[in-house]
């Protein structure tokens, strides 16, 4: 199927990055359409009426929404190095840990970053570190979660790669992912962000700052609403 591929996204967003990383790794040519999230395009609203969110992949007349669903679609619809292993048990493990990375690491980390100082915040930081330790163990001295090459789980966890910029923005003094506590994750972060295919779609520090700038109040409110969940 040689139909054109378009990706509607917001550069700087970790969700958009997942979709782009998958496309780059599979060597798929695509047109990136930057969405103004404050003024969503007709194209986005028409093709993702349920959530009205980015990223949204348009492949010919097919619309695929939800970043990890897009990653699996890209893996299955296009030739190129597989993002998921072929063995069912290994696939199940990758999916399990991806869900863990999203729900227990990235989500908790979000709460840790944007909850004002206090007991609640300390709790989220502790929880994040506990969960990051499990991710650290999953690396088992390998270059990537996927082994020698970037895979589905690496892409799912990629938001951890620009943590330090966010910590700066949130005014954190000492990074949650410290060298001493998480040597494997720190090494992974370096490998991930310097990978040929990923580099091409990794936002720069300034782009990440720009994406999150002016959002701080909203993020604090969002973290507050997530506190009990």
């Amino acid at each position, binding site marked *: 199927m040689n139909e054109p591929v378009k990706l509607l996204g917001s550069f700087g967003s970790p969700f958009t990055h997942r979709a782009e990383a998958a496309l780059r790794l599979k060597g798929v040519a695509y047109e990136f359409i930057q969405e103004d999230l404050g003024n969503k395009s007709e194209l986005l609203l028409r093709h993702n009426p349920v959530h009205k969110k980015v990223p949204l992949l348009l*492949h010919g007349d097919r619309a695929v929404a939800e970043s990890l669903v897009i990653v699996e679609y890209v893996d*299955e*619809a296009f030739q190129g190095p597989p993002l998921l292993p072929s063995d*069912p*048990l290994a696939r199940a493990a990758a999916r399990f840990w991806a869900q*863990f990375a999203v729900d227990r690491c990235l989500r908790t980390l979000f709460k840790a970053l944007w909850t004002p100082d206090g007991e609640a915040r300390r709790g989220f930081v502790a929880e994040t570190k506990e969960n990051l330790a499990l991710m650290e163990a999953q690396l088992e001295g390998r270059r990537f979660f996927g082994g020698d090459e970037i895979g589905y789980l690496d892409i799912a966890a990629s938001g951890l790669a620009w943590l330090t910029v966010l910590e700066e923005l949130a005014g954190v003094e000492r990074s949650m992912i410290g060298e001493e506590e998480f040597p494997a994750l720190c090494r992974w972060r370096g490998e991930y962000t310097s990978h040929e295919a990923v580099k091409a779609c990794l936002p720069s520090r300034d782009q990440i700052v720009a994406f999150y700038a002016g959002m701080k109040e909203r993020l604090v409110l969002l973290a507050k609403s997530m506190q009990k969940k």
Partner: protein
Amino acid sequence: MAGGDDLKLLGTWPSPFAIRVKFALAIKGLSYEYAEEDLASKSELLLSSNPVHKKIPVLIHNGMPVCESNVILEYVDEAFAGPSILSADPYERAIARFWAVYVDEKLLASWATMLFRGKTEEEKSDGKKALFAALETLEEALAKCSDGKGFFGGASVGLVDLALGSQLSWLKAAEVMSGEKFIGGDKTPLLAAWMARFSELDAVKAALPDVDKVVEFAKMRQARMAAAAASNN
């Protein structure tokens, strides 16, 4: 897979997450050992098989645990022969995965809020509104996905049918407890027909709990939560 597959499912009878795995195993014609877990006193096997979350369901296949219900469903589809739960077409798979997430994140979350998670009357009422909205959206989704063939998966049940179907006893229990019509109502005729069709399947009859039992369970849980809240004040 060759004969000699050892399958064990750890679950609880009311859990939609466990129920959907039972559906999948039945669809594939697989025999397995079922162990009902007491969540107040989790078994050693559960704790060692799912040390990360300590939750059910867990499917143990030849000693190897698989956790997280939707991960288990895809695993069962990939590891065993038999009727497919997911299409071979990448786009149809993507659509199914999208709606499977929706069915849990929007639908299940809304009735759970209405019944349990909502702390105030306002929150519970918001849950109810969200439930109606989610059902409307799913009605449209069913029209598109089924392509006139009867299930979200088309002519045969698929991932979304299992994920939504596993919640049927709870949706009906929510109707009994609130006096509202959710899935059986006039607003969602396709879903009502789908529900009747789905409930007729042998795999489903065996795994869906009686609505009365679920209502009783829900009321007991609400009472326990109220008591705990009262004693915390």
